[in-house]
């Protein structure tokens, strides 16, 4: 790694620190990191869209390699139709011609809906319904081979899925008071939902901690590079640890500033 790459890596560590500083309070460093992410993502997306979408899928098909004549001598001249429809989308910026954008929009929504409705019904409704209507495997009620309640194909799991689904649906049935047996089933339904939400919460905690772990791993790698831990960096120079310590000093100075600010504000309040 050369010094230039190391400086970029240091900048990445700075952005990491800036982002996590929000956990204490909102501050200009966090704002800078936040705006940078949004700006870079948008810019990157535009470039990707241009080079991976418009150029190969429209311009190259229209131009057939001849950029001067464009579609006039193209073997696929019909690609001019989606091009015109795309341009019509931009009419939204004009109050007078905004109606033009409804045509491509209508076409797009019509195609999307036509594609989505049958496939979504089939895959997200019907197949899920079939999955809850399986014949309960009484012969392997507690698992296949050994006792295993976590076996998702055991009769026990199938029964839980069936009863849990019915009970959860009953909880959302508000046309009848949740009393007696109906109320008890609805209560079982809410417990089923809560277990589901609990599992989601657990996974969410894992996801958030994973982000922090990843950043710690990257900061550690940065530290290793700063002191040439592997010993095989041929571009290593004295500037690496200098940059490292300058950055650490900067972080410490900011923490001291924040502590001072906190103490001053407490004194002023008193």
């Amino acid at each position, binding site marked *: 790694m050369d010094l230039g790459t190391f400086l970029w890596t240091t900048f990445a560590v700075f952005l990491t620190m800036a982002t996590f500083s929000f956990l204490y309070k909102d501050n200009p460093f966090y704002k800078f990191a936040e705006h940078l992410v949004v700006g870079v993502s948008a810019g990157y997306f535009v470039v990707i869209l241009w080079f991976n979408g418009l150029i190969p899928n429209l311009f190259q098909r229209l131009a057939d390699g001849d950029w001067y004549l464009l579609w006039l001598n193209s073997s696929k001249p019909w690609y001019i139709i989606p091009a015109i429809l795309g341009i019509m989308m931009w009419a939204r910026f004009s109050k007078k011609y905004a109606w033009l954008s409804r045509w491509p929009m209508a076409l797009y929504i019509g195609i999307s809906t036509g594609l989505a409705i049958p496939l*979504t019904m089939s895959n997200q409704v019907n197949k899920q319904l079939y*999955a809850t209507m399986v014949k309960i495997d009484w012969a392997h009620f507690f698992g296949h081979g050994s006792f295993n309640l976590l076996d*998702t194909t055991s009769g026990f799991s199938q029964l839980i899925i069936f009863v849990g689904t019915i009970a959860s649906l009953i909880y959302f049935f508000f046309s009848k008071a949740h009393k007696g047996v109906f109320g008890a089933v609805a209560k079982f339904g809410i417990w089923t939902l809560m277990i589901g939400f609990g599992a989601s919460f657990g996974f969410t905690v894992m*996801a958030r901690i994973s982000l922090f772990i990843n950043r*710690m791993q990257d900061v550690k790698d940065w530290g290793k590079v700063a002191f040439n831990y592997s010993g095989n960096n041929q571009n290593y120079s004295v500037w690496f640890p200098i940059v490292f310590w300058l950055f650490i000093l900067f972080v410490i100075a900011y923490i001291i500033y924040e502590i001072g600010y906190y103490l001053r504000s407490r004194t002023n309040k008193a």
Partner: protein
Amino acid sequence: MNIFDKMMRLDRRWIFLFLIIVCVVTYIIPFKVPIHVVPEVRSIYDFIDTLEPGKIVLIAIDYDPNNLAELQPMTFAIVEHCWRRKIKIIFTALSQNGPGMAEQAIRDISDSMKVDKTYNGKFYKGREIKNGIDYTFLGYKPYYGLVILGMGQDFRLPFPTDYYGTPLDSIPMMKGVLNYDQTAGVIDISGGSITDAWINYGQGRFNFPLALGLTGVMTAQYYPYLGSGQIFGIMGGLLGAAEYEKLADNPGRAMGGMRIQLYAHMVIILFIVMGNVGFFMNKRKKKLREKGI
């Protein structure tokens, strides 16, 4: 304010600080935690492990940098497993910032593949990974639903060229590869709603074997598809990646992060218990006060 009030109204910044200290300490001290492999991760591993060399798998890198922490270890483990077994890969990246993620993964795993390694007692000689021979990176195209449907007809419809501008017909690996029928299956590593499109427009329409690698936040939501048989495997978050790394005998960032996960979860459970104890004790105190006891 009594102790139970304090337990309920603890400044969240103390929780963050405590969590950071626990994470850093467990990161610094090296120790291992046991990792239990679940059948839904094992089925993905078995799928790759039983494929014959030369077969093609489509791996969809459908995540942005914000999901890199959880999903990049999955990509590393699966792709290296494929390449060590000489299985060819078609990469797509249907997420906006996905191409960058895919390129980074391809570059880093290609570097790792140059080194001789032994996994699960089997020696694999290092080799050069070649674009067009070992993999094809198709890149990004907008409107992922239509792209997935288009690839079901012919990869050349949405992707006349690969990400680097080479026409698909000029790529040796893509000769005779028309659509999903010529692939062994699809593994979607995703951090967003593109997964729904792979299930609806991909597996649902073209009926190919589909497995998912998901962020922790999404995982619970997609388990019903496993029960219905629409997907054959699921890897959830960093834990799923760690399980795959364990199966592949290729310890990486995910396995390294599991001990931190364990203690971080303990800290969070501790604070949840604290908050609940504070809540119920306060409630009891209030009831007793109302009764005049």
